[in-house]
């Protein structure tokens, strides 16, 4: 379960998040809002990439400030631009990097890499140069690189923004099929239809927090 208490955060004197209090036990949580509304910063808080100036963020009882490395092992993060996330030159190497500190033996790690590539539909891509994949394949690789470590929570910050319709569908179907708790920041409102809960951010605050229909209606009226 994710808990935020009295979270406030400012960058260069500009308040980015203010008075955010949330308890998130649901399996599928959507996050929407205009550009600059604070939703990406909210996502980064959950993984400990950003720490609050005031208040606290906890994931399953682990505080992002006090237990940063443990939180990051528990919370996988998928960025908008997969190029920013891919570190190693080939597909299998990039996925295997997530197991760098794993106590598993080399054959077990290799099996986990193969199984994860299979899970995201990248079978046979092991030795392909990672940065020469298509946009959709890169995002699937970024997802595989996170999933191989088997996180309990997956936070995705607009993972389909750079993708065409077919690849968007591919990534979304995969995300919706995962057993992990999912926090999805997106501008693709249709994706959120089956979600348990949707948060609407505006100027650093949660202005609507409801089931998808009601929350998205509030968002649409906010946008005008």
């Amino acid at each position, binding site marked *: 379960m994710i808990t935020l208490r009295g979270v406030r955060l400012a960058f260069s004197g500009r308040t980015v998040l203010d008075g955010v209090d949330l308890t998130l036990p649901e399996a599928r949580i959507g996050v929407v809002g205009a550009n600059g509304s604070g939703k990406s910063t909210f996502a980064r808080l959950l*993984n400990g*990439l950003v720490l609050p100036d005031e208040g606290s963020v906890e994931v399953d009882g682990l505080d992002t400030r006090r237990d*940063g*490395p443990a939180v*990051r*092992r528990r919370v*996988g*993060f998928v*960025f908008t*631009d997969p*190029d*920013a*996330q*891919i*570190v*190693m*030159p*080939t597909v*299998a*190497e990039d996925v*295997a*990097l*997530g197991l*760098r*500190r794993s106590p598993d033996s080399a054959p077990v790690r290799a099996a986990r890499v193969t199984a994860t590539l299979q899970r995201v539909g990248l079978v046979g891509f092991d*030795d392909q*140069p990672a*940065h020469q994949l298509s946009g959709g394949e890169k995002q699937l690789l970024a997802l595989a*690189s*996170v999933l191989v*470590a088997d996180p309990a929570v997956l936070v995705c910050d607009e993972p389909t923004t750079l993708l065409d319709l077919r690849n968007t569908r591919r990534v979304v179907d995969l995300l919706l099929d995962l057993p992990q708790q999912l926090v999805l920041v997106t501008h693709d409102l249709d994706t959120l239809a089956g979600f348990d809960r949707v948060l609407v951010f505006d100027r650093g605050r949660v202005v609507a927090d409801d089931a998808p229909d009601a929350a998205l209606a509030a968002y649409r009226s906010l946008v005008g």
Partner: protein
Amino acid sequence: MSPRLPSPGLYAPGSSVLHRAPAGIKLAGLAALLTVLVVREDLVAVVAGALLALVGYALARVGARVALAQVWPLRWFVLVLVAVQLWLAGPQRAVVTAGGLVVAVALAGLVTVTTRVSAMLAAFTRALGPLRRLGVDPERVALVLALAVRAVAVVSDLAREVREAHAARGLPPDPRTYAAPLVVRTLRQADALGEALAARGLDD
């Protein structure tokens, strides 16, 4: 017009004898050859190194384009280096200095195109193992070295994108308008990489 070549330093999958050779031996061999090139600093060493590199690429069976891609980014630098050396030290010195540089990069490229980064990482980790008792973290050092190898290809791709953006806008080649976006994009890429490593728990 530049030929469209693969990025330098990228692993080229294969099953040649060089691909199958242990990463540690290839890296040690490279270190030994580079030491000879630097210590001897003569034409014989450069020619021998060049022949060795040619035989190596032939054995690796990665193709001429992959081989050329390793040294092509050096072309302007080599031209300037040759001009300066011709002016300051004469033709033989120019050939030895510029040739030595090209041979060294070609040999290093031969190792990177035939060795998976993960294998290099494992070799570095093993080699640095004894330093653990001095407080050195071999995994961290190996990751930094692996990222440095990867950075060659990343910066090369960024440079190509900046060049193409200039060409698309019909701008003439100008180091001032070329350097600024390249530096900015490289720094942004470094920031993004740092954030990605942290997000994947690789910063602890």
